[in-house]
């Protein structure tokens, strides 16, 4: 119930001693009228009294402990005619004393009563019309605000995300109707590293959208400096503080990823913790810090982690974890953890998986309470190599034919085209020969290890010998003419064959071992 405020227009009649008998007020002199507001507390007993009064109420004779009655009397009100519509008190007609200085007659009261009976419904209609107009104006204003907020927000969200080789970076943003102030950003730095941010501005609507836009710009600008994630957040925090409305703040997680090494470094300003999907589940990566814009001079601890091929980092906003089911149960962090741990290795699979779990949880027709933002960074270039086969051979002359027969068997299930399989076999034979003769120096007691691995889009045969510290010389195409003239040895075809028959040759060595990897791309290589 609202507070009743009655504005009374009281006539002050300036009476000159000679016209004291003139009962007619001077209708042209509005300046004589004085508006007096009488506030009636919604709990004042007078309201109940008016509601049930059978007709006009004489204040002089009313015995009721009511502040409003005293105030009305003080304002010069003598008679109150309650206006009742559909059993509800919607207003009062307040009259001062009769100018004739006599009391109100029975006829007067009857007249007022019937006037009230007709005025009340009319007043009610007028009230309803005004209420509806006000509501429509408010709705329109909110609708316009919403559009502005959405426009700002959409403008400041990235339209495309950088995709470093071997990585898949994806994001999903779904605004709530009221637009909650979520944001995310991914930027490729000049040094090839990837800076990413996800954040949430408290509050909704245009103010939140403005703060979100400012925060994103400040993050981008700070990200261009030689600052770590902690330094970026500290700088943005100091810049935001003092500029953003009080009680408003921004949670934000900021990270820098080196896509070549998987090195990840991030800092957190009060945002939801990210999840790292691992081989045996999911880990929540912890980092804490004050939200941005609350207090100046904050430090943000940087957390380091090295991601491995095949792993995925999932960032989210609280619109995910704080979504409710019809029974008011909350989606919650543990449930999100389980979804991530359950894993999805398909491209774009994780975001889809989280969203479908969320939909299943919240049910059909869910009115989304807050913005939902998800971002995933997945290293898919070299997912954990699945070793298909491994075998050790003695360093015996002619052993290369056993090795190639074994490799042929090992790759038989990979649907390798026959010609490419033949090429691979010859390359393997040559590499094993080199391992036996050069790497192991023909010492039969030294092993040659042959490993067949299937990776994302590669078939790799790795041949390891005990000739550590050795590198294979750069191969030039043999000069057949010179060989035929007898100017060069007829030998020296091995490395040339290896390099000609597979898509790539990689070598690595440590103090005791030397490994040559023969690579065939399974997505269609050059050596068909």
């Amino acid at each position, binding site marked *: 119930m609202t507070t009743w405020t009655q504005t009374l227009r009281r006539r002050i009649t300036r009476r000159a001693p000679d016209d004291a008998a003139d009962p007619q007020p001077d209708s042209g002199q509005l300046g004589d009228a004085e508006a007096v507001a009488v506030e009636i507390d919604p709990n004042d007993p007078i309201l109940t009294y008016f509601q049930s009064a059978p007709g006009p109420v004489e204040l002089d004779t009313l015995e009721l402990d009511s502040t409003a009655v005293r105030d009305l009397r003080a304002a010069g009100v003598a008679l109150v005619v309650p206006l009742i519509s559909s059993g509800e008190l919607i207003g009062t007609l307040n009259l001062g004393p009769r100018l004739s200085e006599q009391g109100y007659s029975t006829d007067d009261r009857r007249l007022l009563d019937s006037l009230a009976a007709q005025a009340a419904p009319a007043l009610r209609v007028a009230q309803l019309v005004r209420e509806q107009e006000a509501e429509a104006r408010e709705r329109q204003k909110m609708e316009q605000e919403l559009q502005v907020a959405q426009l700002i927000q959409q403008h400041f969200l990235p339209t495309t995300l950088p995709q470093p080789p071997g990585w898949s970076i994806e994001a999903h943003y779904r605004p709530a109707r009221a637009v909650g102030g979520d944001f995310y950003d991914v930027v490729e730095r000049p040094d090839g590293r990837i800076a990413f941010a996800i954040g949430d501005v408290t509050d909704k609507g245009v103010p939140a959208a403005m703060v979100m836009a400012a925060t994103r710009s400040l993050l981008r600008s700070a990200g261009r400096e030689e600052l770590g994630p902690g330094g970026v957040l500290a700088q943005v925090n100091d810049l935001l503080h003092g500029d953003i409305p009080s009680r408003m703040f921004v949670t934000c997680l900021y990270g820098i990823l080196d896509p070549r090494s998987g090195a990840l470094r991030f800092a957190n300003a009060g945002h939801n913790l990210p999840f790292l999907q691992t081989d045996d589940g999911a880990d929540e990566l912890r980092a804490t810090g004050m939200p941005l814009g609350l207090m100046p001079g904050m430090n943000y601890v940087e957390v380091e982690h090295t991601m491995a091929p095949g792993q995925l980092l999932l960032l989210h906003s609280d619109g995910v974890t704080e979504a409710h089911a019809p029974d008011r149960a909350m989606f919650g962090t543990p449930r999100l953890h389980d979804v991530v741990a359950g894993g999805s290795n398909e491209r774009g699979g994780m975001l889809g998986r989280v969203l479908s779990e969320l939909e299943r949880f919240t049910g059909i027709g869910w009115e989304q309470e807050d913005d939902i933002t998800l971002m995933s960074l997945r290293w898919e270039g070299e997912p954990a190599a699945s070793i298909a086969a491994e075998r050790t051979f003695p360093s015996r002359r002619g052993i290369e034919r056993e090795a190639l027969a074994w490799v042929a068997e090992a790759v038989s299930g990979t649907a390798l085209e026959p010609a490419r399989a033949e090429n691979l076999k010859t390359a393997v034979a040559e590499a094993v020969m080199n391992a036996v003769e050069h790497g192991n120096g023909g010492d039969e007691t030294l092993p040659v290890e042959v490993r067949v691995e299937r990776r994302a889009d590669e078939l790799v045969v790795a041949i390891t010998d005990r000739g550590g510290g050795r590198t294979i010389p750069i191969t030039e195409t043999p000069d057949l003419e010179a060989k035929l003239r007898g100017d060069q040895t007829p030998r*020296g075809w091995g490395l040339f064959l290896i390099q000609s028959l597979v898509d790539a040759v990689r070598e690595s060595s440590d103090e005791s071992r030397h490994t040559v990897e023969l690579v065939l791309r399974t997505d269609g290589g050059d050596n068909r």
Partner: protein
Amino acid sequence: MNDRFNAAARREAGTGIIDLVGVLDGDSAAALTEAYAAAAPEADRILLNFEPMTFMNSSGIALVVELLARARVEGRAVHAAGLSDHYRHIFEITRLSDFMTIHGDMASAVA
């Protein structure tokens, strides 16, 4: 895996034919030299029959290069027949096929 190499020499008209049987690798040197010596006299062309060959590695290629060099010095043309698609591909990438005439099979080579 012990299909040892042996090279048999025979002659048809002016062609000295060498049948390469089994694995042609570094161990085949002596047998191949011997077969060439038997096939070459009075032959103006040498035909290498790869049909019975089961395997060849880079050392085997070196032996073919050696034989080709010698035949060229002696003015004999070298032909090859019966190479599998894979070894034919290797003869192409090594450019051996630029210096010898390649036939699909023996029948067309001796025709």
